[in-house]
């Protein structure tokens, strides 16, 4: 309740908030912290590179710095910074009051924060991961180091896994929100371009990050449980490259699209005209989003994949540059047709465009197979992707200056902002352009040949100038916060999206009337019974419509500031997302140190194998204890999270194409399942790939008893039947029937796990363990992931039974039973494929 909600000056507010604007601010602040973290690491290794073979860092410290810099900037700064803007402004731009699942949104943030803290801690666990941000196999497994030395690296991998889970939750949330919470009259075509760019970003994230999650889970099992996915010479490095780059290339656009959206918004605002070819720009973005999944093998030209597929992917890579050409020309022509105002946000956006053009052109070289043979692994690649990625950063900083007055309610000094841009632009080019000239320098190595020193020294000076520009930025914004003049609702005159039609900063509930574009322009409808049926504002529709002036925008403000009215109460506070974040943090911290204990177990189970593999470990009690503590915390907080009454009402009137007729939560579950299809698919795909690599007939089924798999098939199919009967019972309000069918599902699930446990035990007795060889790893891990899904389903079933017993849950609202069923049937479908793959073929 807004009245009970702690004020912004209270620490408690920031621990419990689920409001999208607060979460957006948390994302922005945290991302800036990680920018500093990654930036300081960059300065460290740039100093090391002042001369060939520099000495301020040890070999390992250099590798750790380079690796963590890459990971932090790509994962913990770029996307989360964009997510901060998206959290704050996407609901405002589409006319929503919050995201579809506010608690899930807070949970995404806490997972993000705690995953970053894990990265920080990993430095103090004997050193963090040092295999490069691409984590290529076999450098990503500790086969060249002792088990004890693996802990910090494990923490980094688990941190990235947690980050990926955070992204997946955010993706489900934004997809549901944008597709089902748009204000009346706001069709997809009319959405503001930043929201469009974010919508496509989250669509790409849904599938790309699922592949990354699969890769990281496999890597984590290798590092912690000693499985063999990435430690063999039987296709391991190719397997990693395929799954990683299936994620990694869309990731480039995932990072860049929000920046592009900000460029579109700021170009429109500061040229005072609609983006030229707006519709075609949207089509081009959609094309890029689709094509982004068709180019990943251009990162693998130097591997042993065949020439035909390399040639095919060269063609798709050239193809993806074409829609970008359209977007670049649209921006340029918008400038030509408009009257440019060189404000700080525009300067940063223009700078981003210039840098992106350079980055894009230099990337075309790498898309060509023959040229890539020469450039791969050199500073050409480093220079190219920094021109692309950091041009994205440049546009994000444009976004920060653009929306700063809206977020804080304060204006900043334009003079300082322009000084910031000048130093930034000079520093950027001084840092990265010499890398093109020193292109023969090998990546991730601090020894380079004579004659390169001048370019590296220029780059190092540039790095410090670039770093200085960020200090100027913090000073400018800090000064604004302390003593800047109050910002008007719309300081940019031609800003046209809905966030500029409400006060700066916006009120907690965003708007008191209901935003509507039904008439073709933004209006705020007062829905109190006594009120007039509709109001009339002066602002046109989203940025797809005609231009408006500040006066026109202000015309809507009387309504936006307007009087309150009766509406469904929405909650804004829950402590449990924070609690779950802590639980996951403690749990993963504990898991990171289990490798030595698992090694000791492996040594005990199979001394011969351990001696041959050079594996030895010792049982450690600290990390297992931390793991158990984490599990205990998670059990408690998840239970309370499930019990908590939290109201996040769906919008009564909204545009919902193409997902009308399905509720928010159900749609969210479907998005989760679509993502899980890719996770499981990547696991199964890994099995198929490795078996093809080994020669399909080389391996047979690992389990000895086909009947056990068949029995489990019957058990799971029967449990699917009992779950569907549970839904029928819930719909009929039949409590006994509901308890009986859900209870039967629980028993069947336990039976499934029992058969699986027996089957594994039987294999163990024969000396076939998960680490015994690649085919065993594939069997245990894939069926193990399925088993974990069954187990999670059983926990949910137990919780639901508890709720039925205690509060007669689901008898009046059967939807949660249906949602559980969707998940359970999905787990069943996965088994439909696992049974033949692992027991018959």
């Amino acid at each position, binding site marked *: 309740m807004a009245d009970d909600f702690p004020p912004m000056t209270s620490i408690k507010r920031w621990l419990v908030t689920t409001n999208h604007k607060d979460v957006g601010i948390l994302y922005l602040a945290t991302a800036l912290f990680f920018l500093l973290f990654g930036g300081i690491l960059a300065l460290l290794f740039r100093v090391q590179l002042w001369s060939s073979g520099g000495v301020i860092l040890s070999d390992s410290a250099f590798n750790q710095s380079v690796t963590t810099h890459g990971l932090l900037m790509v994962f913990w700064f770029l996307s989360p910074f964009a997510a901060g803007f998206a959290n704050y402004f996407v609901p405002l731009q589409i006319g929503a009051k919050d995201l579809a699942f506010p608690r899930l949104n807070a949970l995404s943030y806490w997972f993000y924060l705690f995953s970053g803290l894990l990265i920080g801690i990993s430095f103090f666990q004997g050193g963090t991961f040092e295999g490069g941000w691409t984590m290529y196999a076999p450098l990503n497994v500790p086969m060249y180091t002792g088990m004890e030395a693996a802990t910090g690296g494990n923490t980094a991998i688990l941190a990235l896994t947690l980050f990926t889970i955070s992204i997946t939750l955010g993706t489900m949330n934004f997809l549901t929100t944008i597709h089902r919470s748009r204000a009346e009259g706001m069709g997809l075509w009319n959405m503001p371009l930043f929201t469009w760019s974010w919508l496509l970003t989250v669509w790409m994230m849904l*599938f790309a990050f*699922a*592949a990354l999650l699969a890769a990281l889970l496999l890597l984590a099992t290798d590092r912690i449980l000693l499985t063999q996915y990435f430690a063999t010479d039987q*296709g391991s490095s190719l*397997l990693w490259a*395929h*799954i990683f780059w*299936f994620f990694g290339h869309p990731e480039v656009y995932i990072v860049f699209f929000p920046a592009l959206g900000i460029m579109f918004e700021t170009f429109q605002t500061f040229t005072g005209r609609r983006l030229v070819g707006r519709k075609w720009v949207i089509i081009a973005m959609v094309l890029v989003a689709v094509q982004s*999944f*068709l180019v990943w*093998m251009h990162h*693998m030209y130097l591997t042993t*994949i*065949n020439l035909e*597929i390399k040639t095919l992917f060269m063609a798709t890579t050239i193809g993806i540059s074409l829609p970008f050409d359209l977007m670049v020309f649209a921006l340029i022509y918008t400038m030509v047709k408009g009257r440019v105002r060189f404000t700080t946000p525009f300067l940063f956006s223009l700078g981003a465009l210039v840098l992106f053009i350079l980055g894009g052109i230099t990337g075309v070289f790498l898309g060509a197979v023959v040229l890539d043979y020469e450039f791969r692994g050199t500073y050409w690649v480093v220079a190219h992707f920094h021109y692309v990625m950091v041009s994205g950063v440049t546009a994000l900083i444009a976004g920060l200056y653009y929306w700063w007055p809206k977020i804080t309610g304060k204006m900043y000094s334009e003079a300082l902002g322009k000084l910031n841009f000048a130093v930034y632009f000079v520093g950027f080019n001084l840092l990265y352009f010499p890398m093109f000239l020193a292109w023969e320098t090998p990546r991730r190595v601090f020894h380079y040949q004579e004659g390169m020193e001048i370019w590296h020294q220029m780059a190092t000076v540039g790095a410090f100038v670039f770093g200085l520009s960020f200090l100027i930025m913090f000073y400018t914004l800090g000064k604004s916060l302390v003593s800047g003049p109050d910002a008007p609702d719309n300081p940019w005159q031609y800003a046209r999206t809905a966030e500029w039609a409400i006060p700066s900063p916006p009120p907690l509930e965003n708007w008191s009337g209901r935003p509507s574009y039904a008439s073709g322009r933004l209006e705020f409808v007062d829905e109190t019974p006594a009120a007039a049926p509709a109001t009339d504002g002066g602002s046109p529709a989203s940025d797809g419509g005609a231009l408006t002036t500040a006066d026109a925008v202000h015309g809507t403000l009387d309504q936006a500031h307007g009087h309150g009215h009766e509406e469904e109460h929405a909650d804004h506070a829950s402590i449990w997302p924070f609690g779950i974040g802590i639980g996951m943090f403690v749990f993963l911290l504990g898991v990171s140190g289990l490798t030595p204990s698992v090694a000791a177990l492996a040594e005990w189970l199979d001394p011969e194998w351990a001696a041959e593999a050079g594996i030895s470990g010792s049982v450690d009690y600290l990390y297992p204890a931390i793991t158990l503590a984490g599990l205990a915390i998670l059990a408690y907080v998840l239970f309370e999270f499930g019990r908590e009454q939290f109201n996040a009402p769906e919008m009564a009137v909204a545009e919902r194409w*193409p*997902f*009308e*007729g*399905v509720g928010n939560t159900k*749609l969210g579950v*479907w*998005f989760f*399942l*679509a*993502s899980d*299809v*890719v996770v499981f*698919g*990547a696991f*199964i*795909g890994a099995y*198929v*790939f490795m078996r*093809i*690599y080994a020669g399909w007939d080389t391996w047979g089924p690992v389990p000895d008893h*086909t009947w056990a798999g*068949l029995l489990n098939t*019957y058990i799971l*199919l*029967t449990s*699917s*039947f009992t*779950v*569907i009967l549970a*839904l*029928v019972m819930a*719909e009929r309000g039949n409590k006994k029937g509901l308890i009986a069918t859900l209870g039967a599902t629980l028993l069947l699930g336990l039976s499934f796990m029992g058969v699986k446990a027996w089957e594994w035990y039987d294999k163990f007795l024969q000396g076939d363990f998960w680490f015994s060889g690649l085919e065993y790893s594939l069997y245990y891990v894939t069926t193990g992931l399925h088993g974990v899904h069954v187990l999670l389903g059983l926990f949910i079933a137990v919780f639901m039974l508890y709720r039925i017993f205690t509060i007669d849950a689901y008898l009046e609202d059967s939807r949660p039973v*249906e949602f559980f*069923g969707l998940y359970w*049937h*999905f787990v*069943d*479908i996965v088994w*439909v*494929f696992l*049974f*033949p793959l692992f027991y*018959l*073929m």
Partner: protein
Amino acid sequence: MASVRLYAIIYVVLLVLGTSKFVFFTFDHYFTYLAIDPYWGAMGATLILAVAKSLLIMAYFQHLIDEPRSISYVMGMGLFMVFLLTIAAGYSIQ
């Protein structure tokens, strides 16, 4: 929402299809009468049945048949990603 009777019929069909997979591999020599390699014949038939089973579960137990078509497309996209990755990666090492 379908009736209990329909759910029961689907369940029985699923059990039969599940058993058939086992049968194909146990009596795979019958594929030789169709001039098909026994192993690949059993594998092909089994995968077809697996797809059929999945479609039945999705359509009737997960009620995709009653949901907006767009949800089927979302799941289709996920499946497309899996096939794309697996087939292209598999082909790349031929």
